[in-house]
């Protein structure tokens, strides 16, 4: 499996036997005639943040939903911490958690009630202590007894992240976690998530439309378009490697390529070393 420079630095010899936080092989999802995800393969090693980029409708959310077990792949395998999601769903999902803008927590429960509800669902040991710890860590203590529907978007994001960390997941899926935050709050959240990946050796799959954020946060990115991985690599080096000045420019170029006939044709215009998914 090819690893980026940053992840290679994080690898230690003994880690060879440790399974990746997430391994996706040949993932495919077809809705009738529409192919939403087409043979996508990648992995998220522990301690690494992988960005999943692409225009709207590229297949990012479908991919995340399949990893969360709420959408069944047409074919392909997903394994979380070495556990096959299809056959050992509960065990695999016990190592996983997520925060997404489209999945806000019930607004009719308070912050503490929501955290307790999800702590029990994830069977968190010492859930009282863990909730107090997260309330402190995400500066939610003053809001603990406030109904979530009354929180500002920034507070809701902090709560969603606190919920996502309840079970100290080995794999964390973050779907546009900073989309509704002001620059300062977004920066704080990014710092927290980076620290988490580093300190807790947690693999993170991150989707975002903010290319600055992706460049400053992710160790590796995958460009998805029309359900396929077009490009993969270090977000700080990719623009230069492909003759673009910024990641945003590269993103725009990739999404405006005439991919209608065959995404692979467009992929052929990209440097071979960073083309298509993980090479095994």
């Amino acid at each position: 499996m090819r690893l980026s420079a940053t992840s290679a630095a994080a690898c230690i010899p003994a880690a060879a036997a440790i399974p990746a936080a997430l391994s996706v092989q040949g993932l495919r999802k077809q809705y009738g005639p529409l192919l939403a995800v087409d043979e996508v393969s990648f992995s998220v090693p522990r301690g690494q943040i992988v960005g999943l980029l692409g225009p709207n409708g590229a297949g990012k959310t479908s991919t995340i939903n399949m990893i969360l077990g709420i959408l069944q792949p047409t074919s392909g395998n997903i394994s979380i911490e070495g556990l096959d999601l299809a056959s050992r769903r509960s065990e695999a999902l016990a190592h996983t958690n997520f925060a997404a803008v489209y999945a806000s927590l019930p607004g009719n429960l308070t912050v503490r009630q929501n955290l307790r509800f999800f702590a029990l669902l994830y069977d968190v040991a010492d859930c009282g202590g863990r909730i107090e710890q997260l309330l402190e860590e995400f500066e939610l203590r003053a809001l603990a007894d406030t109904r979530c529907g009354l929180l500002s978007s920034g507070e809701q994001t902090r709560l969603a992240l606190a919920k996502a960390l309840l079970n100290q997941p080995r794999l964390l899926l973050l779907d546009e976690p900073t989309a509704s935050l002001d620059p300062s709050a977004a920066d704080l959240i990014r710092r927290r998530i980076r620290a988490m990946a580093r300190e807790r050796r947690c693999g993170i799959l991150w989707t975002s439309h903010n290319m600055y954020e992706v460049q400053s946060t992710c160790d590796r990115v995958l460009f998805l378009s029309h359900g396929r991985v077009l490009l993969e690599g270090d977000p700080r080096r990719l623009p230069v490697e492909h003759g673009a000045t910024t990641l945003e420019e590269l993103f725009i170029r990739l999404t405006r390529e005439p991919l209608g006939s065959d995404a692979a044709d467009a992929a052929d215009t990209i440097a071979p070393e960073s083309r298509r998914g993980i090479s095994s």
Partner: protein
Amino acid sequence: MRPVAAIVLRQYYLMRGNPTRILPIVAWVAIDMVLWGFLARYLDSVNGQRINFIGNLLGAVLFWDLFTRIMQGVTLAFFEDVWSRNFVNVFATPLLISEYLCGLVITAILTSLVGLAVMLLLATIVFGLSFLSLGLLLLPYLLLLFLFGIALGVLACAMVLRLGPVSEWLVWPIPALLAPFAGVFYPLSTLPTWMRAVSHALPPAYLFESMRAVLAHHPTRPEGLAIGIALALLDLVLACWLFSHVHRSAVRSGLLARYSAESAV
């Protein structure tokens, strides 16, 4: 067991946080008890005690309301996830479908017991109806009602999961649609043959036939009640299987991930 406790605890939080969720559990059953209690008392006064209206009518209303409460207990707990668009959050956890259903069922049993206590209190204190006169038969009666109420509740949840949130409105009239066939207020012999055929597939019909026989001091048919309980059990197994099947199909088709406030058909 902790994921099951989570589903029950969530419902407890919601009820504690908003009394309007508790009110329907007691208000409608209390109104029914009062309305039918006075009607039965009036009918008893003009009837000259030939038929025990208090026992027959009030008993029937109490059992039917209890069945309705149990069914709605299951569906309301499920609707909380529909209304708060919480499916992605809940079903992306290690929670098993059996644990989820178990949580809904325990919630329904607990809330129904509150309604039952209110009904028993009103029927006994205000109208002098003693359910102890039914003796040990009360136990299989309650078992049958709980089994069938839960079965129908789970079936309704499967229907809403498959057809989308808008189909919630198809759930509320279900008890009213079944009542004429279940012979809640009259013997099944009153019904035309085709309706009676439907009645024999409905577990509560066996309960109401048995109850009327006990109150009229006629011999009861224990095998009839046993058939009713067996049917209710079968309905429960089928309803759980159907919910699980609909859930699997929703995961396969992407319906679960896209479930929203609009029709998901």
